């Protein structure tokens, strides 16, 4: 019975991870076509503040919790709380600015599409041609 429950749980998580395939998206004006994990982390935490000398990075965060957000933060290896603290610390040092907050993935896509230098994430299914996809996070290794 216990094993059955475990198998069921694993199946559900696997299904979730499959459905929660997340894409890192950016405004079309960013000068990069792809990102690796380290770059993504540096850019998203304002460790790097600009795409290049012309275009500053504008981080967009999903305000409410959800599968996409969870998968994204897991991929980064950082908690949402920690990420928020990092942003706050940057602000306290006068180096960064508050990320743009959106309330839904649809709004995220819109916001990234219209904001110069915007960097965000969204479920793979929500992508529109208005944004540039830099990285697809296929989370197969699931952690309960």
């Amino acid at each position, binding site marked *: 019975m216990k094993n059955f429950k475990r198998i069921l749980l694993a199946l559900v998580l696997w299904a979730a991870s499959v459905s929660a395939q997340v894409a890192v998206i950016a405004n079309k004006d960013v000068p990069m076509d792809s990102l690796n994990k380290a770059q993504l982390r540096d850019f998203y935490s304002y460790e790097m503040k600009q795409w290049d000398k012309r275009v500053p990075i504008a981080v967009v965060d999903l*305000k409410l*919790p959800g599968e996409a957000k969870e998968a994204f933060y897991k991929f980064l290896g950082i*908690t*949402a*709380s*920690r990420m*928020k*603290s990092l*942003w*706050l*610390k940057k*602000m*306290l*040092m006068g180096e960064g600015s*508050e990320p743009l*907050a959106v309330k839904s993935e649809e709004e995220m896509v819109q916001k990234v599409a219209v904001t110069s230098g915007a960097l965000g994430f969204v479920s793979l299914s929500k992508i529109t041609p208005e944004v540039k996809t830099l990285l697809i996070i296929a989370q197969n290794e699931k952690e*309960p």
Partner: protein
Amino acid sequence: MSFRNLKLGAKQLLGFGVILVLMASANIFSSNRMKAVKTEIDEVAQSRLPRALVIAELKRSTLDLRINQLQYALAADAFSKQAQADLMGDLLDRINKNIEAYDSLKTEALNRQAYSAAEARAYSAFGEKWLNYQDSTFALLRLLRANKMSEALALLNGEARQVFEDFSADLGALVEITQKDSQAGAERAEGVYLSTRGVNTTLLAVTIIVSVLFAAGLTRFIVVPVRLLASAADTVARGNLTVQLGVNSEDEIGQLARSFNQMTASLREARARMEQQAAELQANNTELQRTMHRLQQTQTQLVQSEKMASLGQLTAGIAHEINNPINFMASNVGPLKRDLVDLFAVLSQYENVVRDHKLQTVFAEVETLKRQLDYGFLVEEIDKLLEGIEEGARRTTEIVRGLRNFSRLDEEGQKLANVNQGLDATLLMLKHQLKNRIEVIRDYQSFPDLLCYPGKLNQAFLNILSNASQAIKGEGKIFIKTSYDGEIVTVSIKDTGVGMSAEVKQRIFEPFFTTKDVGEGTGLGLSITYGIIEDHDGNIEVYSAPGQGTEFVITLPARR
């Protein structure tokens, strides 16, 4: 195969095995239960309490953050503002570290399925509110950056405060939950411990009972039989070989008992054989002693006969030498008497002539001489003297005859001899001892001459008679009786002497046994006698008691 038939080792093994199984089951049971207790305690000690600590730390840090934010907002100068900003960064780090520590503890607890739904709910509520609080901090920083002081303070005392109080409440709930769960765990652990202790006590009691039973069994199967064996061995050691042990087990004790039985049986056999051998040995020994006794007698007799042979020769010589002169005397006394009668007749005739012829005056001088010499007495005295000589000669002749009779010792080989005459000759030898003191009463039956060693037989009689005379202190009697039934001659010599004790009677025939003072007796007499009678294939018996005299009865087979 019953328990009784098991070897001792198997019995012990079985007993110890049962005890071991009991102890092992008690141990396994309690170790399992203790594992459960340990799990509970570990859960409390390594997860719940650390979580509670982390939560407490979180509560403190968030409170610090709240104060810090107020101070940051109210900071008068750039320097203190920067200090508060640095502190806020540190506090945020600390809070995140605590959150991450809690998350890792939570993940482990989830893996162990030891994370309660209530705690999960409270924590996720806190998580959301905390994120909201950080959002409000963004707003705060934004307002302060825009120098909207009053709005910033309004935010701090309004929305931010509300969120803070909310998640503080959540943290309080979390602490309470972890405490309650810890309490419950401790109680469960205690419950398990108590029930385990109960079961263990029961198992211990059972183990003790089984051990006692096992010890009793050991006693029953080892100690009791060994004690029986020991007492049986003791009995055997005291010489009772009839002991047999009942064998009712197949173990070593049983084997021992069987071996013991075999041993006693062998011992019995051996002892019987030994006793038989001892009896044979005894018989042989008796035979040997008898032979030796005969040998000694023979030796003694040899010595004695040698001695007596010499004595006999001497006696014979003396007898012969005395015989001639005594013959002169005996044969001359008669003629001398006759001659003296003739001489006195002549003298008497002289007196008649003197008286008839009145020649008294002429022979006055003769008469005077006669008176002077007491002639009448003289004549009478000559008669008496002659009678004395005659008597002496007769007695001397008699002695010589006795000596010659006795000295038949030196005669070689057996001769026909008259036993009664032999007895008389021996009595003659003893005449001076008996004299008037002892009366000899003879009761002879006449019978034919016996083929014998007459000298030796006489010596045997002499020894007995001599002892008889010596046994009679003062006056007494000796009865000598002979009889003949056609085959056996019986000679009985009985005295009225002092008699002898049974001890003395048993030993009188032993050589050199004597009751006389040293130097008075050789202790050979009766043993020689015994030997002599044996030489004649005869028998000698003695009947005596102290104060009742002694009787020797000699029986001799008549051979011709």
